[in-house]
């Protein structure tokens, strides 16, 4: 019966639930929401593409002389983040040297079609259905035959490249 008294006390207590659509909780500053890219600062070093565990960032890089300094520097023409695969692990944000990719406070990520979730940032849209295998330069450290997984990965890279051209 002791329990009954407690539930009665709770009946008259102030409610603690937040009415979500009307009241949106202010997120703490470290919270990892949707990713955005600040395109003009991007030096197209493809680091984020390499480190992303889910291969959801895919960049099409071109050598282009942007600011007339005569030297053609890498410039990312197409930049796509595929939110249907993104894990919000934050590794790309940590690895970016000029930290032009960062988290926003936005967390309502939904769309009727999975392809809509692939957001484009550069001039040219990048096809989200191709797995952007990052070009990992594999140093054959181990003299003995490299384990199968590495071959398997190299072979799928060939397949991806042929598929894309």
């Amino acid at each position, binding site marked *: 019966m002791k329990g009954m008294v*407690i539930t009665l006390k709770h009946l008259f207590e102030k409610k603690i639930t937040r009415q979500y659509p009307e009241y949106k909780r202010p997120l703490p500053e470290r919270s990892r929401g949707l990713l955005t890219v600040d395109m003009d600062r991007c030096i197209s070093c493809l680091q984020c593409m390499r480190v992303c565990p889910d291969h959801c960032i895919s960049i099409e890089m071109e050598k282009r002389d942007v600011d007339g300094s005569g030297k053609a520097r890498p410039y990312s023409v197409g930049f796509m983040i595929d939110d249907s695969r993104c894990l919000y692990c934050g590794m790309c944000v940590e690895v970016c040297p000029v930290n032009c990719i960062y988290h926003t406070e936005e967390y309502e990520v939904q769309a009727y079609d999975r392809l809509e979730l692939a957001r484009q940032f550069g001039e040219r849209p990048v096809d989200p259905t191709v797995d952007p295998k990052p070009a990992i330069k594999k140093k054959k450290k181990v003299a003995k035959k490299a384990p199968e997984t590495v071959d398997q990965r190299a072979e799928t890279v060939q397949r991806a490249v042929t598929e894309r051209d």
Partner: protein
Amino acid sequence: MLRDERRPESAALSGRETGRLANPDVRDEFGLETIDMNMGPQHPSMHGLLRLILELDGETIVRCDPIMGYLHRSKEKISENRTYPAVVPITDRIDYLGNMHMEHGYCLAVEDLLDVEVPPRADAIRVLMCELMRLASHTPSIGFLLLELGAFTPILYGFRERERIQDIFEAVTGARMMFHYIRIGGVKADLPEDMPERIWERVESMEANIQRDFVDLIEGNEIFVARTRGVGKMTQEKAIEMGLTGPPLRCTGVDFDVRRDYPYGWYPNVEFDVVTDTEGDAEASYRVRLGEIKQSVRIIKQVLEKLPEGEVMADVSRRVRPPEGEGFGRVESPRGEYAVHVVSDGSDIPYRVHYRTPCTVNMQLLQEIIPGHYLPDVMPIMGIVDPVSGSWDK
């Protein structure tokens, strides 16, 4: 030839003398037999996707055969295709109610491989976060035990406590559940300034809430006692034989706790006592979990009092490339002993990662203990194990 003998036939339960009836002598002359019932994958109190093929003789269960694999994402295969740091977000998703412990276990294994020395402040923060995770995992699990007995209210009080701790996690790590905070060699970032006071006050208020909402609401309740006392009773030998660890083992009286017997991280310079009980039934597991909440609060306070200074990340290169060999990590997660065995072949992709998740082993309890109980007793016995489907399915 050997190949065929090894391949048993399909799901029809192979080669097992099935004790057909509870007391065959009485029932046989009436020609009654048991009903095969499917407590199927989609069932409100199965803690996730689990299918129990139950053979019922009236209300008593004659035989129970858990079928798992509905949430099997094969974390081990995924871990074999990612670089070492990229596997950490994967381990988060194994036991999604004890994420911090999963990360901690994997990072300990890789650090054992790299034999890198984690700075003391990182160790202290890791233990602080793991104990907060234990609180955030035990409060709803007590709520689940009661939800399955039919009391719908305590689970919401449990989740109110968990919500408050998740706010702390979000402020420190950036995410509410999938933290990706513990990294190989340390911790992603230091605690924000006001965090120690905030944690202290939150933990203080939690003890009072737990006392009022759980202990008073449930302790003397006759129906709760009637439904859980003596249900799923285990002796110590039986528990050890089944390889149980964590609260299910400690509720039978065996005081094994990885934090004390295989010390890791900051635990040596924090004292706490291992909560054990003697009964070995559902009510004992409730008491053990309640005791562990109090112990975790005690540990958190000790860590907060003497939080060491210093940086939080050892100098580990971004491209972790451990030497060839094996690394072992063992952690006490809220559900039991969680061990990670990493085998590396020198490249920056792990060659083989084996996760020993506590729920995979604790689920054998269902196969051994359930026969002989009533149908509604399946719930409190599941409450002893308090499994998480991501953890038993890996």
